[in-house]
């Protein structure tokens, strides 16, 4: 079982709830899901959709073509119809039938032009009805349902309620048409609206009425419900990082609201009571919304100096503002974590869309030279574990750590396994022992380059953005400068030596391969999911997912690359930044690049088809799938 569903409609019209209802229903039926939320930088009115993939094995990507399309408006139909496979299912409110596909104010004029051309080419009239006929002629089951009539006549709903339950209606209808039992849908409704009894009741009535109406149209076998014995998590990346941070001992989170990072801070704020199995409170983090990102990094550094595990979460524009703070943290060996969720840039860019275009920036940001760690997660479970690792790395080596993620990880929802215990290492602490007349030296030179750390309040110490001596006081002496500078820089080498291989890179697929897909971030999911179909072309393919970007594990990566006949870089930016990094650090040139910078995530089918094209001789492929 591997089905792809798209539910679309105007933002503010309930797409979020519709999508989560579908996701939860499918999860409760025992399936694994991966759902991609796409939306505009807008509060109400512009198009948004949820692309949900449900399968009986874990998946880390979405795939085209779409099997089922649920549309709350004509814009969704016009935008997504070309993604639906022949023989698929399309559901919408029959009241839309006479509506125009092109005279839609919220639809971008460029998209309108493209749609008009497409409709003309396929000889479809510009109405929903015309489109419906066309799809029917291609073998697709088109099911226009009189939702508004149903809700007003059968349930006697007044208008506001009809509008508000349209999303539940569509979702219930399309799930039923997929073969999902009403019971599963009702259970999901109960969970989703568990805190508002009236709303839950209302939606249950809707589900009953719609499922009853739709059942005569169902052509599929019922979806078998698998009882899952093990507990799982259903999370977006923002959620799993929040959980990881809290498990990892984070007790101060600062943030300035920015998409797609802010949800993580809301999660932490809501989960401020960490309880043990007896219900006792064993931890309580503090979350501070700052006046800007400069304040966010400064407050996080302040907290870290005071001995609290501190972090801030942001995206590209915010990280730009943090560059000076990062440099201060590097100079003062501060264990602070910056969680960076990349989004479409440059500048304001595509605030709600995906990219992997800040890789080089995070490695080189901040003036001057200093040691830092950049760790990139490829999926939600990794993101949780890496959140803990970032805090550990930060305190162990007393360096700023950038936990690098992307909008794909941040916003996509997926099922993942549960982790309950993580390793915590607080690094070298000052033991408080001072000889007669000796004073505490925060930046004491030691054999391993790491100074024993006291927290503010434990000893008297100095920190300074200026170059400093062991005490932390300003010092411009050239020999002290040499020594202190080297002390900081040498940490990178030490980190590289001591980091476990699994933090450097992961190989997915066969150990022996002909061709190697080089990738990172959420794109890894699409590449790994595509291994099966790529393997059918007759060559052995594996995926190398790079995780530690700084210090870059050059020799470790080189080993993998040199085993391959062909290396194909797949990532969501224009330059092929990982490939550029490989050239810089390994001295190896990766010519084949599959690049996507539309702001939508790379899909499984795109990796598979690109691989085929590369084998046929193409070198640089630009992807543009997905609306």
């Amino acid at each position, binding site marked *: 079982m591997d089905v792809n569903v798209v539910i679309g409609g105007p933002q503010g019209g309930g797409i979020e709830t519709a999508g989560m209802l579908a996701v*939860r229903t499918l999860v*409760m039926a025992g399936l694994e899901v991966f759902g991609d939320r796409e939306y505009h930088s807008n509060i109400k009115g512009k198009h948004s959709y949820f692309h949900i993939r449900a399968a009986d094995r874990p998946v880390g990507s979405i795939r085209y073509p779409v099997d089922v399309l649920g549309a709350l408006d004509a814009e969704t139909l016009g935008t997504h119809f070309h993604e639906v496979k022949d023989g698929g299912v399309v559901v919408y409110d029959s009241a839309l039938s006479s509506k125009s596909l092109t005279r839609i104010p919220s639809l971008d004029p460029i998209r309108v032009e493209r749609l008009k051309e497409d409709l003309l080419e396929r000889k479809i009239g510009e109405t929903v009805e015309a489109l419906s006929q066309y799809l029917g002629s291609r073998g697709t089951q088109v099911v226009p349902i009189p939702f508004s009539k149903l809700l007003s006549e059968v349930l006697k709903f007044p208008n506001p309620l009809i509008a508000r339950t349209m999303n539940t209606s569509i979702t219930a209808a399309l799930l039923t048409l997929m073969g999902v039992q009403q019971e599963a849908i009702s259970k999901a409704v109960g969970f989703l609206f568990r805190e508002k009894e009236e709303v839950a009741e209302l939606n249950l009535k809707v589900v009953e009425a719609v499922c009853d109406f739709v059942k005569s149209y169902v052509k599929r076998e019922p979806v078998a419900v698998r009882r899952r014995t093990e*507990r799982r*998590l*259903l*999370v977006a990346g923002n*959620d799993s990082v929040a*959980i990881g941070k*809290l*498990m*990892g*001992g984070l*007790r*101060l989170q*600062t943030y300035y609201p920015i998409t797609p990072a802010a949800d993580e801070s809301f999660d932490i704020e809501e*989960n401020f009571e*960490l*309880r*043990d*199995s007896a219900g006792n409170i*064993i*931890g*309580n983090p*503090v979350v*501070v919304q*700052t*006046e800007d990102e400069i*304040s966010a990094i*400064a*407050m996080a*550094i*302040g*907290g870290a*100096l*005071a*001995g*609290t*595990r501190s972090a801030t979460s942001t995206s590209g524009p915010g990280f730009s503002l943090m560059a000076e703070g990062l440099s*201060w943290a590097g100079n003062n060996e501060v264990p602070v974590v910056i969680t960076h969720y990349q989004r479409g840039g440059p500048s304001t860019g595509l605030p709600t869309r995906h990219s992997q275009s800040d890789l080089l920036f995070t490695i080189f940001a901040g003036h001057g030279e200093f040691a830092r760690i950049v760790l990139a997660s490829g999926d939600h479970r990794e993101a949780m574990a890496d959140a*803990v690792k970032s805090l550990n790395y930060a305190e162990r080596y007393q360096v700023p750590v950038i936990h690098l993620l992307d909008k794909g990880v941040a916003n996509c929802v997926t099922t993942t396994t*549960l982790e309950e*215990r993580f*390793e*915590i*290492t607080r690094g070298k602490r000052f033991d408080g022992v001072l000889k007669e007349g000796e004073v505490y030296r925060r930046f004491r030179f030691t054999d391993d380059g790491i100074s024993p750390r006291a*927290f*503010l*309040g*434990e*000893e*008297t*110490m*100095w*920190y*300074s*953005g*200026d170059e400093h001596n062991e005490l*932390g*006081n*300003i010092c411009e002496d050239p020999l002290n400068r040499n020594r202190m500078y080297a002390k900081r820089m040498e940490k990178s080498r030490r980190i590289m030596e001591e980091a476990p291989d699994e933090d450097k890179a992961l190989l997915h697929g066969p150990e022996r391969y002909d061709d190697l897909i080089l990738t990172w971030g959420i794109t890894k999911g699409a590449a790994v999911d595509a291994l099966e179909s790529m393997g059918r072309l007759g060559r052995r393919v594996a995926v190398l997912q790079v995780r530690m970007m700084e210090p870059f594990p050059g020799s470790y990566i080189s080993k993998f690359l040199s085993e391959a006949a062909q290396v194909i870089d797949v990532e969501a930016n224009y330059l092929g930044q990982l490939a550029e990094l490989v050239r810089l650090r390994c001295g190896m040139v990766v010519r084949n690049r599959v690049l996507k910078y539309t702001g939508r995530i790379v899909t499984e089918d795109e990796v598979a088809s690109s691989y085929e094209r590369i084998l046929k001789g193409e070198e640089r492929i630009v992807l543009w799938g997905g609306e």
Partner: protein
Amino acid sequence: MSSFEWSSGVWPDWCQGCGNFGIFTALRMALAEMGMDRKRVVLVSGIGCSGKIPHFVKATGVHALHGRSIPFATGIKIANPNLKVVVHGGDGDLLGIGMGHFVALGRRNPDILVMIHNNWVYGLTKGQASPTLGRGIRTKALAFPNINDPVNPILIGMASGYTFLARSYAYNAEHLKEVIKAGLSHRGAGAIEIIQPCPTWNNIVNMEWVAQNTQYLSGWDPVVASEDDLLKKMQEVMRLESMDKKQLGIIFENRFKETFEDRLASINGYYKDNPPARQRIEDEGSSLPVSMDKTFGRYMV
């Protein structure tokens, strides 16, 4: 302890006659007279001549970024509210590049005292006009008289929500020391504007200028009597600040506002007893036994 015991021994490299020496003296005298616990004191400073002060004081110093000493200080205070956190910065640092944070501190009202070393110029970068330099005034380094209007830190502080505002003069050690002590004793966000002579760049503010252009407050009650009294007091302060001579002394004190720490405690009942810095976060190298069900139940299926 004597004020000398609050000297770190690092050579203060300010110019002879710099008002920072006066502030440095009064600060150490205040810390000594109040019998502060040295380890508790954290001086956070910005960039500039005034920003160097933590290195010369024998107390923990965080010499932070230009304009950003306030958020550094706020983060430190939130993590460990038991620390006595004091901010030192120049007028350019705190009221120019750092103005956003200066205002934000007032909105939050944490127990942090800000000392503004006000010399009308950016000393360390060669004397450019700062946000407190009056229009039409031409200090040594300016090619033309200043064409910008100055800000009044007392009024901005008051509008932002500071609960303690005062002004003093760097070379009146006794007066400044008492004002600092009052500021350190006040619970909430405080700002002291300190008129700081700068012999290298500011040829206008000297002893004569101070004598003619400042006035020590006498018979003025800065304390807000009740919550209803607040508006009236603020209006009186505005009148005070509109006078020709700059008023020296404690200008405004409001004890009716909750501190940021109080407010955090009201939404997070465990904050006072278990602020972030005091929380245990690991159990013999392993994460705490946080129950997934009881804590993160909403994410579980």
